[in-house]
């Protein structure tokens, strides 16, 4: 078998001379772009450039404790209410953690969903799949990421991929099951493009957009011409299905050589002051890059705040004294301040550029954390109640959807489950869930998500 990105081309049987030529020509060009590029043309990408809103999803890998952030219970016993204090916000009666002072000032633009819950296991991966696909895990029937659904249904809107994951995909969070950021049955053509690099670093480069060592753009252009000539010969004798692949290679060359595309990833084009406003850290600069990508045609950007929960400062505050030794100290000194800065910068930046009405922002996590503080001073995984939130597009800010009981143990009213959040994201993007069907497994038309949107987000 030959291998291009994640696509395997059969050689032993079913090999065509054309596929061999393509692989050879691509190798000559030094291409090693991810599979979405190689296969985009094969996946029945709809290039109708439909008018929908864009979406930036911020995924809080590790998952903040809801009682320590956006659903505080100051009247609960000490071993439940935690260490932090609530502060008032721009919305009367709505309080959030004292370590989100900037967010408190713009709560009128944010809709909190405080009654999220599910009951099917509390692994990180389970939560990731719920919140990014809207489905529980089924090994025999893996479900696509929201960005892949958007890619499939609406295609790309220019040279950039329709769905991009920043700064990198989710790696080890405990088990080896999928993270819900894959295209599943939609095929490799709709895999998100994963940046795979830290945009906050001074030596930041998008590896896949760099010409291979020793290959100037002139040489790449010469090889494009050679590939084109080979294609001309083959085009006369082969079928339309093989021609679809040509587009992938054309896109690969375009992405590799297009100044516009490269500029989309160049944060040095932003003012130092704005870069500071987002925070000079991996998450902050990823949020800034998300805005740049949306501005330039990407429809769906996922920002993973972390790619693991082990051996780093992240939301997964077990306080276990080992590789999961995140505590209140991490929340206070690193996590809350960095989130507060970047999230509010993103909202304000989008608004100042007139982009907020056309961009939906969803801040989601795997689950909440246990109401009772554990013996080591941390909190553990808790999917029975948690808070996520949305803003932008048609989302009505200043709202609190649902509530939890006195100790944040379970929804008290208006329980919401993950598929409803996904449905709300799609609806906020302008997708009519009643009439828009996804070609599911076996091309059977299915709803994008089998749930109703949370109507209070829009009313």
């Amino acid at each position: 078998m030959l291998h291009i990105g994640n696509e395997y081309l059969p050689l032993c049987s079913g090999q065509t001379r054309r596929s061999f030529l393509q692989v050879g020509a691509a190798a000559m060009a030094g291409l090693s772009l991810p599979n979405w590029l190689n296969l985009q043309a094969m996946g029945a990408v709809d290039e109708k450039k439909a008018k929908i809103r864009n979406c930036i999803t911020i995924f809080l890998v590790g998952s903040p404790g809801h009682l320590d952030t956006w659903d505080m219970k100051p009247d609960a016993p000490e071993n439940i209410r935690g260490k932090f204090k609530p502060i008032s916000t721009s919305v009367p009666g709505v309080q959030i953690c004292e370590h989100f002072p900037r967010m408190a000032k713009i709560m009128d633009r944010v809709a909190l969903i405080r009654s999220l819950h599910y009951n099917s296991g509390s692994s990180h991966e389970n939560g990731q799949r719920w919140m990014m696909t809207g489905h529980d895990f089924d090994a025999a029937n893996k479900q696509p990421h929201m960005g892949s659904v958007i890619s499939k249904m609406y295609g790309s809107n220019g040279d950039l991929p329709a769905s991009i994951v920043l700064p990198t995909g989710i790696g080890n969070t405990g088990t080896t099951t999928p993270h819900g950021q894959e295209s599943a049955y939609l095929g490799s053509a709709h895999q998100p493009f994963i940046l795979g690099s830290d945009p906050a670093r001074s030596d930041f480069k998008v590896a896949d957009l760099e010409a291979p060592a020793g290959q100037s753009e002139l040489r790449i252009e010469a090889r494009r011409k050679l590939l084109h000539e080979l294609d001309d010969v083959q085009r006369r004798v082969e079928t339309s299905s093989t021609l679809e692949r040509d587009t992938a290679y054309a896109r690969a060359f375009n992405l590799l050589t297009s100044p516009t595309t490269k500029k989309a990833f160049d944060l040095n084009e932003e003012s130092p002051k704005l870069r500071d406003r987002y925070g000079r850290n991996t998450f902050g600069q990823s949020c800034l890059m998300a805005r740049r990508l949306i501005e330039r045609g990407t429809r769906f950007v996922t920002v993973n705040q972390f790619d693991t929960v082990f051996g780093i400062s992240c939301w997964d505050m077990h306080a276990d004294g080992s590789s999961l030794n995140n505590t209140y100290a991490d929340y206070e000194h690193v996590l809350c301040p960095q989130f507060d800065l970047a999230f509010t910068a993103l909202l304000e930046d989008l608004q100042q550029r007139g982009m907020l009405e056309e961009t939906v922002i969803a801040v989601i996590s795997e689950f909440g954390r246990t109401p009772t503080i554990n013996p080591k001073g941390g909190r553990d995984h808790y999917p029975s109640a948690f808070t996520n939130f949305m803003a932008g597009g048609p989302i009505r800010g200043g709202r609190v959807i649902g509530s939890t009981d006195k100790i944040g143990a379970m929804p008290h009213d208006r329980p919401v489950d993950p598929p409803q959040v996904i449905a709300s994201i799609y609806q906020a993007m302008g997708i009519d869930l009643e009439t828009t069907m996804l070609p599911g497994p076996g091309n059977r038309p299915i709803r994008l998500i089998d749930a109703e949107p949370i109507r209070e987000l829009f009313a």
Partner: protein
Amino acid sequence: MDQKLEGTPKATLQLDGHTVTRSDVSNDWGTRLQWKISRDGKEVATVAAGIVPTFEHADTAPGKYEVVLQQFQYVSYLKDKDGKFTQSKYIDISAPVSYTI
């Protein structure tokens, strides 16, 4: 990928009476900012700097006061058995200003 904070944050302070006003932070790491207050060379308080750029320390005990802006420099999540960061710490990001009561 664990974040590697690069560069050095900087801010300038202005003193008006006992009130300190800070500039925006350049190369802002986004981590927590705090005021460190010393009296006669000994640290007496640290206070979250928050989003309000001005600060006035409430203590009126006689002495020479020095105020400096600090930011948390994240290096790693590692902590000692008491839960204190072992590599990450607060660093000064401004020149100090001082006044006497």
